[in-house]
């Protein structure tokens, strides 16, 4: 950024110290939660929050495992996330392709229609969505909630794919056409592989969002065997008012897969966020 001198000045030192301080402040809550998840109930009241636990007390994790009903909720959340993201990828790519290639009024209108969905978050419309879902009999069913996730994720997905569509050269499609490719085959064998980076970012963004979603899951699912992880977490939080070591263990359990995924996919994640935001 226009700085050729690599001198280590006083200003840099001050910035470094400030940054370290801010980072520590940001990290304290996470440390405390991880720390508490290993503490016994007695330690919770007697020792100070930053002291290390006396021993690795794993009973909290066992309790959290049982209370969250983890074997069911984890698989449910995973299922919802994976299925909705897969459908989203196929639908968003296809509709963005259509919008980019067909220049008539209908497609222009539908692009604007999708864009409005970004400006209005689905949380603002949760009530009409819920009522429609209820009347259609989509509440308390796996298909219902997956459909809702797909519908609410579409607008961002189309926007993202549409902004990537300029990287797909038109000549390739034309030559495929000339060679006698059908329109579906052109899409799946020519366009989709070229959209890989966009698809990666879409998958990551949407799966984090669906994994962490609470409002939709809470509205649409009330049966125990269909619940998602966040809904179960909230139920656990409201039970545990005085002894919250189990809740801390539950937090660690639910956040761990996300953090692991993030550290592997950091590059795509950052790219997706910034491209989605800056190209508009």
């Amino acid at each position, binding site marked *: 950024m*226009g700085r050729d001198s690599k001198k280590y000045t006083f200003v840099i030192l001050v910035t470094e110290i400030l940054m370290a301080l*801010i980072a520590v402040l940001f990290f304290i809550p996470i440390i405390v939660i991880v720390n508490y998840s290993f503490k016994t109930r007695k330690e919770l009241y007697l020792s100070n929050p930053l002291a290390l636990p006396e021993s690795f007390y794993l009973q909290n994790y066992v309790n959290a495992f049982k209370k969250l009903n983890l074997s069911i909720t984890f698989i449910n959340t995973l299922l919802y996330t994976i299925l909705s993201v897969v459908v989203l990828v196929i639908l968003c790519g296809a509709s963005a392709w259509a919008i980019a290639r067909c220049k008539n009024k209908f497609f222009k209108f539908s692009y604007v229609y999708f864009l409005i969905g970004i400006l209005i978050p689905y949380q603002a419309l949760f009530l009409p969505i819920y009522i429609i879902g209820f009347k259609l009999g989509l509440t308390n069913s796996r298909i219902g909630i997956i459909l809702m996730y797909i519908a609410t994720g579409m607008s961002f997905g189309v926007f993202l794919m549409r902004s990537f569509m300029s990287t797909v050269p038109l000549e390739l499609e034309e030559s495929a056409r000339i060679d006698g490719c059908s329109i579906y085959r052109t899409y799946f064998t020519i366009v989709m592989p070229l959209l890989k980076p966009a698809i990666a970012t879409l998958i990551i963004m949407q799966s984090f969002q669906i994994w962490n979603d609470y*409002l939709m899951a809470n509205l649409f699912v009330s049966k125990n065997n269909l619940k998602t992880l966040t809904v179960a977490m909230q139920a656990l939080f409201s039970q545990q008012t005085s002894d919250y070591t189990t809740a801390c263990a539950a937090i660690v359990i639910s956040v761990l897969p996300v953090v692991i995924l993030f550290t592997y996919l950091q590059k795509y994640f950052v790219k997706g966020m910034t491209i989605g*935001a*800056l190209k508009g």
Partner: protein
Amino acid sequence: MQCFDNCRFKLNVSLSRWGLFYAYDSKIRGKKIYRTIIFMPCLISSVIVGFIWLRMFSNVLPSLNKMLGTNIDFLLFGRKETVLTGLLIANNWQWIGYWMLIYLAALQSIPNELYEAASIDGASPFKKFLNVTIPMLGPAFTICIVGITTGSLKVYELLVSSTRGGPGRASTSIIYHIYNTAISGRQYGYGCALSVIFVLVLLLVAMIQVKFLTKKEVQL
């Protein structure tokens, strides 16, 4: 309607300007670690963030208080006057990393030649910042301000596990209010009317902001 979020998002906007400071000096050591740490909270679900900060304010910080022998009042969620400050801290802890990333990407896309030209013309670092960096960040400002506004207006999940709209109705957000009237209070029609008005307000705010801010952007 309880539009108390308003004051929250304004503060949010000003705080996210930290991003500038943080991203500007890319010479410091270990900046990747800092980025990861500050970004980490935004991977966590808002429900969990609410719970973490509820515990931070009501248990962890007071016991730190006792340990250090200081007497700072940390029970921010307990009183009407301070509850929004507490939620502001929680919300910012979660989202600052995200908006920082957007500023960072915008900063990295500023062409180097502009800085070189400025330094040939004899501009001081502060002048460079004021006259090159800030105008070039125009689009990022627009995105951040619009995004933070709509994001703060739709706050709901954070409240569920922390304050539940209380004490009294001091921290009830619009969505929380709609949820209470419609789902818990079973007044579906009234709830629908509320959400229609809310959508109109959201659109209006976004339009005004986009209009106002894009006027100030600089095109190369």
